[in-house]
């Protein structure tokens, strides 16, 4: 099967980026937007066609989905064996990611036509969106771990550029910097992990690394370090990189601040695509994670995921900025995906967690993008991010209201929405593996429903605020993506994901686990009910509750002071103590001692130069003294 045309999926946005980037001062915004949307539509169609061709025309060969290499070329040689390739790898998860990235990116491209209208940097914005989409495509279709790392860095910088889009706003600049540096710090782990693989595995290629019968997995431990196989260390370090990108605790601090970027960017990068790259990384190398050292690293993945999902969900309940609530919600949901991967097995039905994680990645992308775009529509109307400035908006913004409601139901796992199905699979997988993780997951499901309906009721119901301008529904360019995404928040639930995506590529039958499903639904409904009582009509219950919890509430509201902790370490310790003392040391000790050597030379020559007095008497004196000294020396020696 020839898939070489897939090369154009990333190349088209790259060309659009170069074109818009170079001509951004010359083009009319309307033209730039059109070019962006058209270019991406082409890539999207190609992605859909590839998915169709791969799953239905080619289908399974020998009972499993095969891996195809659409294109591949050597980028640089390190040694005779070790080299970086650039290419297109097609397998079930990369194709699923192509579909996700294309769909969300296209929706955001269309939505932004309305949302960003009249902005000064409109062309620049579209150029950066294209750059991001190109990099994200490159990441998901990577044929080897180094290619993935390259595009991993590129999505990081696109994220930096888009968060800092309003570059004259100091908070946006700070947020952009923070996002880049925190993820770069995590990437340090990723890079060292790759270096370990470069030596001990001798290859970067996914097909060789991931082969369950291949040398790396079947030869087992190999060299070990501190009781663990070196490959295990590599996997742990690479997971650190993934945790940074996916905002897992404790590397999550950049994500809430990243909401400084324009809202459609938050929907695309910080909700649906880039932040799930960490999940994708683990899924991409799943055979290694599963087989090496008996899945030791997967346990770490599971617990980090579970903890983050709980931690973030608790914080989400107390935030007042709707974008920040959504940001914490994203963290929590990505934690869900991580824990699903962590509890997964490999063969057939045992790989339920793997499938559930990918399934949830897919459904979450749709409903979370919808939530963000809906929030953007609201922010567009009332010119504020804060819940206290909103209320009763359902009358003014019917489409936004209904679509947001659907997305909220979906994320809460309400029956017959897509979120219901994917969440159920995750909980079933967790239940089979670890009761503790299952109960954490269940509790988070309740919290999710609560905070989501807390913002839903506060925005669209509750008491109407006095608005400067009467809010109105957003233009068609914004509402059409909302409607499409609302459909996508329900429909994908009816796809039999387990036919297409499974850890061993063979597919299996997944059934709804009724007792677990009912428990989850009831938990969700309780959450919604509590939110209904608290926020449907303005009342003083929330205030009372927050008072009862007192200190705990304050801690939660301040996100457990993790940011302050980091700030203390970076500002006080690294910047003021380490870096300042190095700068001081350089100036005062090293430079001054070099100058000291120079001064000493001058001083001593200053002293010696008196000998060169030019007076014959002096020279004669020295000559005689010297002669006497020599005579004495030789006399004494003999």
């Amino acid at each position: 099967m020839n898939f070489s045309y897939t090369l154009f999926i990333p190349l088209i946005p790259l060309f659009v980026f170069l074109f818009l980037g170079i001509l951004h001062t010359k083009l009319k915004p309307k033209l730039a937007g059109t070019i962006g949307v058209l270019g991406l539509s082409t890539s999207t169609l190609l992605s859909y066609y590839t998915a169709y061709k791969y799953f239905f025309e080619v289908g399974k060969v020998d009972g499993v989905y095969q891996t195809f290499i659409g294109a591949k070329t050597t980028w640089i040689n390190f040694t005779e064996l070790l080299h970086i390739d650039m290419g297109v790898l097609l397998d079930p998860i990369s194709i699923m990611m192509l579909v996700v990235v294309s769909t969300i990116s296209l929706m955001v491209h269309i939505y932004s036509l309305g949302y960003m209208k009249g902005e000064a940097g409109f062309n620049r914005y579209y150029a950066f969106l294209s750059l991001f989409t190109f990099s994200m495509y490159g990441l998901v279709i990577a044929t080897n771990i180094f290619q993935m790392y390259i595009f991993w860095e590129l999505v990081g910088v696109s994220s930096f550029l888009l968060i800092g889009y309003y570059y004259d706003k100091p908070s946006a600049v700070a947020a952009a910097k923070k996002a880049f540096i925190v993820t770069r710090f995590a990437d340090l782990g990723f890079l060292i992990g790759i270096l370990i693989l470069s030596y001990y595995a001798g290859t970067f290629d996914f097909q060789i690394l991931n082969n369950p019968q291949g040398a790396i997995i079947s030869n087992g431990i190999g060299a070990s370090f501190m009781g663990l196989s070196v490959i295990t260390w590599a996997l742990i370090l690479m997971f650190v990189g993934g945790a940074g990108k996916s905002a897992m605790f404790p590397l999550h601090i950049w994500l809430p601040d990243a909401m400084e970027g324009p809202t459609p960017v938050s929907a695309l990068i910080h909700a649906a695509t880039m932040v799930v790259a960490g999940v994708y990384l683990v899924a991409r190398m799943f055979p290694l994670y599963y087989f090496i050292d008996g899945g030791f690293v997967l346990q770490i993945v599971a617990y980090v995921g579970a903890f983050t999902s709980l931690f973030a969900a608790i914080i989400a309940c107390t935030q007042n900025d709707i974008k920040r609530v959504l940001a914490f919600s994203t963290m929590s949901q990505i934690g869900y995906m991580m824990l699903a991967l962590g509890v997964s097995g490999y063969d057939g039905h045992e790989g339920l967690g793997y499938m559930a994680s990918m399934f949830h990645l897919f459904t979450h992308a749709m409903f979370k993008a919808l939530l963000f775009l809906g929030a953007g529509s609201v922010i567009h109307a009332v010119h504020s991010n804060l819940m206290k400035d909103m209320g009763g908006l359902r009358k003014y913004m019917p489409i936004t209201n209904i679509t947001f409601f659907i997305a909220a139901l979906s994320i809460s796992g309400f029956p017959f929405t897509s979120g219901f199905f994917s969440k159920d699979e995750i909980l079933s997988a967790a239940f089979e593996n670890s009761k503790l993780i299952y109960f954490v997951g269940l509790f988070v499901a309740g919290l999710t429903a609560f905070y989501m309906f807390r913002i839903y009721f506060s925005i669209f119901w509750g008491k109407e605020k006095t608005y400067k301008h009467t809010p109105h529904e957003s233009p068609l360019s914004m509402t059409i993506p909302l409607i499409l995404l609302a459909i996508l928040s329900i429909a994908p639930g009816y796809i039999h994901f387990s036919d297409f995506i499974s850890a061993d590529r063979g597919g299996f039958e997944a059934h709804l686990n009724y007792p677990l499903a009912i428990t989850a639904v009831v938990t969700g409904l309780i959450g919604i009910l509590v939110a209904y009582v608290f926020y449907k009509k303005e009342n003083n219950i929330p205030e009372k509750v927050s008072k009862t919890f007192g200190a705990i509430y304050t801690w939660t509201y301040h996100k457990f002071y993790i940011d302050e902790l980091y700030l203390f370490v970076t500002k006080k310790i690294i910047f003021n103590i380490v870096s300042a003392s190095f700068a001081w040391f350089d100036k005062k000790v090293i430079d001054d001692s070099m100058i000291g050597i120079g001064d000493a030379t001058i001083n001593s020559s200053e002293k010696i130069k008196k000998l060169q007095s030019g007076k014959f008497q002096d020279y004669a004196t020295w000559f005689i003294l010297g002669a006497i000294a020599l005579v004495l020396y030789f006399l004494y020696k003999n």
Partner: protein
Amino acid sequence: MDILSLFIVAPIITVAALLFAKNLKQSRVISLIGSLVQFAMAINLIFAYLAERATGNTAIMVFTKSAVWFKSLNIRYDVGADGITVFMIVLASIVVLAGVFISWKIKDLPKEFFISLIVLATGVYGFFISLDLFLLFLFFEVAVIPMYLLIGIWGSGPKEKSAMKLTIMLMGASALLLVGILGLYFYSSPDGAYTFNILEIAKVNIPAQVQHYLFPVVFIGFAVIGALFPFHTWSPSGHASAPTAVSMLHAGVLMKLGGYGVFRVAMYLLPIGAMEWSWFFIILSVIGVVYGALAAIKQTDLKYINAYSSVSHLGLVLFALLMLNKTSWNGAILQSLSHGFMTALFFALIGMIYERSHTRDVRELGGLLKVIPFISVIYVIAGLASLGLPGFSGFVAEMTIFVGAFQNVDMFHRVATILGVTVIVITAVYILRAVGMMLMGPVKKEEYYNFPKATWYEKTGIFLLLIPIIIIGTTPLWISDIIMDSIKPFIERML
């Protein structure tokens, strides 16, 4: 005339022509023509080199030319080139050309300025092509001495002091180097037929005991100009005082002589000494890498930031050379090229900003993206290149170095490598700090709105430097393959 000697003759003719120039206009046109010719020759050299290799010439050095100079001491005019030389010459010619564009409007003594600049270039070209140690040393001095004049006369701030510090430290290094070269000379033959020719010396086995003493002498002699910790302090103050084009040429090309000399002379002629001493200098170079980057975080003067960044980036060159394997050496050469273009670009941009704002203090600048968008955007791009973003040369070079360094199995090398890798974070911190303070945020002062836009000659200079960064960063395969082939005979000495 052979193809390499032209690189010495062409600048000399340019200097001769400059002597007759009457004013700024004439001198810059002459310099421009001269450096354009050199640039064309350099590009031509790549093709000539590839053609020569394609004919099956597998000699270590091609385009060799040999003539007796001082018969009694057997000093010869020996020149030759391999792939590494070719790229170094291309680097030098581009930076010189860009430097001429950047100095388009120089005010004081333009003729003398351009003469010094071109003389410096002559020294650099000569150094790269020399195969005779005496000749190499001579050109080294030719390149270093004009620095004193260029900083002392056209510089700013405490220029005399900076020029003095720089010259004395480099001269001190030269003294060491001379000792090292003489040592090599007297061990170059067992029967008294001494030679300065590098390829000839490589054929005799210098006793291990001698190598043990000679290696550190030669290494430090070269490494001072490559900003080895703790001999780097001439660099920040020297750069801060130097005029723009001189900083560009100095950081971009002259500091590369250090790594190049270490590779060509110290490593090649004293392999046993290198293996013996590498651990010690690895420690120094890793300190330089991390320490330079950490010191850069706290700086407020743009040139100091960039100078410390150079200490860190060039520390990586020495670090990679000391890792003693093919991949890391390839990385060292790539890093030399990459840093040459990047740092020259940085200094060019800093000069442009300084010309408009008359300050280099990042705290006083702000919001420049609004007022001088072109220069600012390029600064952001240069910054991203410097922090090792894929698609630019820095990434290719650093990754090659790290992968190469990690192929050494023992704990010492591994720990050193991991410490070295941390710069990817520290670099991001100081680059983004400067970018955030200076380019982003609100416009600090009302008068900044009156800044003139970038001129055609500024833009030309910028593009000349930016394009190679992107070429190396996006299509590294052909370049690294050429370098790798040229490294082969050198690395074989280590096994």
